[in-house]
C-alpha cells in the first residue's frame, strides 16, 4: 500500500433507489502514486464523472474506501467532517470547460483559492504569477478571462487547479476543446506539475490524441475498472 497519492478500494455508487436505482460504480479499485498521471477512459455513461465526483468529495459514494495521501477519507461513510475544506486544501479540479470567474482577472482567478484560504493577497498573487509563467500565460496575467483564447483559458484553469499544491488533481476531459498540439501541451504541463510537486493526477478523457501519452490507463466499463499499461509516449 502506497502511503501517498490516491487509493480506492471497492468503491460503489448507486444513484436513486428502488426500481429507478442506477448502479453507476460497482466496485472500483484504483491507485495513483504521487507524481503519476493516469488516464481514465471509458464509454459514455460508464461512470467516469461519477468516480471523479466521489473522489472530489462532491457526491457521497454508497460503499467502499478512499484514501487520499495518508488519510482515510471514506470508509463506508465520510471520515472527514469539512468536505469543503478538504476540496479547498487537498484537491485541485480542472474541468472540461475552464469555468473561470468572469469578473476576476487571470491572476486573481488563480490566486482566489489561496485568498479564500486566508493567505495575504500579495503572496497569493505572486504564487499565481509563478504558475502562470510556468504555464506560459504569464503575459496575460492582467487580462480578463473573456479576452483569452480557449487554450489560454484552459491553461489558466489548470493553474487554478494547481495553485494550492494539492496532493491530488482531478481533471475531467481537460483537452476536449483544444487542438492536438495544445492538448499535448496541457498533458505535458500536467506531467511536469505532477513531477515537480509530487501530485497524483487523474485525467478523464475520450481524447484519442492524448491517450497514448499515459503510462498507465484505467478502463472503466459498466462501473468496473480494468487497469492497463499505456504507451507512455513522449510528447515531442
Amino acid at each position, binding site marked *: 500500500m502506497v502511503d501517498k497519492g490516491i487509493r480506492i478500494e471497492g468503491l460503489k455508487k448507486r444513484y436513486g433507489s428502488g426500481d429507478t436505482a442506477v448502479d453507476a460504480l460497482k466496485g472500483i479499485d484504483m491507485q495513483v502514486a504521487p507524481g503519476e498521471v493516469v488516464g481514465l477512459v471509458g464509454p459514455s455513461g460508464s461512470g467516469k*464523472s461519477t468516480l471523479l465526483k466521489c473522489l472530489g468529495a462532491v457526491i457521497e459514494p454508497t460503499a467502499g474506501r478512499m484514501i487520499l495521501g495518508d488519510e482515510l477519507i471514506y470508509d463506508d461513510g465520510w471520515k472527514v467532517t469539512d468536505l469543503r475544506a478538504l*476540496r479547498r486544501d487537498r484537491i485541485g479540479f480542472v*474541468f472540461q470547460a475552464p*469555468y473561470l470567474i468572469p*469578473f476576476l482577472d487571470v491572476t486573481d482567478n488563480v490566486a*482566489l483559492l489561496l485568498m479564500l484560504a486566508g493567505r495575504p493577497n500579495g503572496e497569493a498573487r505572486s504564487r499565481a504569477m509563478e504558475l502562470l509563467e510556468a504555464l506560459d500565460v504569464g503575459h496575460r496575467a492582467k487580462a480578463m478571462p473573456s479576452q483569452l483564447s480557449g487554450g489560454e483559458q484552459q491553461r489558466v484553469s489548470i493553474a487554478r487547479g494547481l495553485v494550492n499544491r494539492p496532493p491530488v488533481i482531478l481533471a475531467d476531459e481537460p483537452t476536449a476543446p483544444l487542438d492536438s498540439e495544445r492538448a499535448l501541451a496541457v498533458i505535458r504541463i500536467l506531467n511536469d506539475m505532477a513531477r515537480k510537486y509530487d501530485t497524483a493526477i487523474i485525467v478523464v478523457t475520450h481524447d484519442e490524441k492524448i491517450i497514448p501519452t499515459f503510462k498507465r490507463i484505467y478502463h472503466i466499463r459498466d462501473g468496473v475498472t480494468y487497469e492497463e499499461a499505456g504507451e507512455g509516449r513522449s510528447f515531442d
Partner: protein
Amino acid sequence: MISLAGRDILHAWGKFVFTGIGLGLLIGATFTMAGVYRGMVDDAKVMLDNSGADLWVVQQDTLGPYAEPSSIYDDTYRSILGISGVARAANVTYLTMQVRQGERDVRVLVTGVTADGPGTPGWPPYLVAGRQITRSHYEAVADVATGFKLGDRLQIRRNQYTVVGLTRRMVSSSGDPMVFIPLKDAQEAQFLKDNDAIVRSRARTAQNPALNRPGVPGLLDSVITSQSSNPYVNAVLVQLEAGHVSEDVARSISRWKRLKVYDRAQMEHILVGKLIATSSRQIGMFMVILTIVSAAIVAFIIYTLTMGKIREIAVLKLIGTRNRTIAALIMQQAIALGLIGFVVGKITATLWGPFFPKHVLLEPLDAVIGLVAVVVICILSSIIAIRAALKVDPAEAIGG
C-alpha cells in the same frame, strides 16, 4: 482577502448603475412622499407659530378654528382681556376661498386680522416686501406663494384689495398660501350675503308685522341693520403675560366664558392628529406600496444577477468557498445596489422637491431612517437569491 462583490460590480457596473438609478427614482418618490407629510406637519406648525398665539379661544364643543367651523361674538375678546394672565387678545377670521386677480384665481386662506398694528396676534410676524396693513379697509398682505406682487389688485367677493406687503412661508395646514385683510372686511367676506339675498331678506322682514309696526317708526330700520351686520369671528387669539401658565388661564377663560380654549400643544394635536390624519394615512399607504415595489425590484434584480452567475457559484463551491463568502457576495451586491439607489433617490428628491405645489420638507433624520430601511430591505431581498445560490450543487461544475 478580495472583495468578490466589488469586483463583480466593477465588471458589470453598467447594469448596477442603471438598475440603481431606476431603484433610486423609486426611493426618491418615497422620500418625496415622506417630505410631503413632513411638509404638511411643518406647515401646520408654522401656521401656529406665525399666529403668535398662546391660546386659541373658539366656540364651545368645536375643534375650531382650523379643523372645524367655529363662530363666536366679536366682542368676546374684550372680556377675555380682563382675565388675569392675558396680555393680548385679538379677533381673527379664517376662510379658505378662491381669490381672483385679473384673469386667474388662487386658492388661499383669507385671514382677517384686527387693525391694532403689528405684534397683534394673527398678524404676519415679518414681511419680505412692502408694509403691514395700515388702513382698516381694502388693503391686503399676501404670501409670495400666491404669486401676487406688490400693488396687485385682488378681488375677494365684491371688494377689491391692493397688495401692500408680502410674506413668506405663511401657509395653511393644507398648504394654501395666506392673504391677510382687515378684520371688518374679512367678516363681511365671510358672512356677506349677495344683493338678491339682502333684498329678499329685507322684504321678508318688512312683511313680518311684529317687526314692521306702523306705530313704531325706526324699528324696521334697526332690525334690518342688525340683520346685515356680522358680529362674528372664528376665534380669539390670546397671548399670555410672562409667568402665567397656559393651563390656568385656559381654565378660567373656559369656565367664565363658556368657550373652548386650546393651547399650543392641543392645537398642534388637532391639526396633525385630526386635520391632516387622512392625508397622512394616504401618504403612508403610498410609501408602503413604493417600499414593497422597491423591495420586489431589488429582490428580482439580485435574483437575476445571481442566477446569471450560477456556474461560477458552483465552481466557487467546488473549490471550497464557504457559504458565508457566497452569501456575502450576494448580500454586498444587494447593499451596493441599495446605496446607489439611496444616493440617486436623495439627489432626485432634493432636486424635484421645490417643484411640488406643496411644501416638501426633506428631514435629515428621515434620510437616515431611509438609509437604514434601504439597507435592511436590500438585505432581506437578497435572501431569496442567497438561498438559491446555496442550493447550487457543486457537482454541476464538473458536469456529466
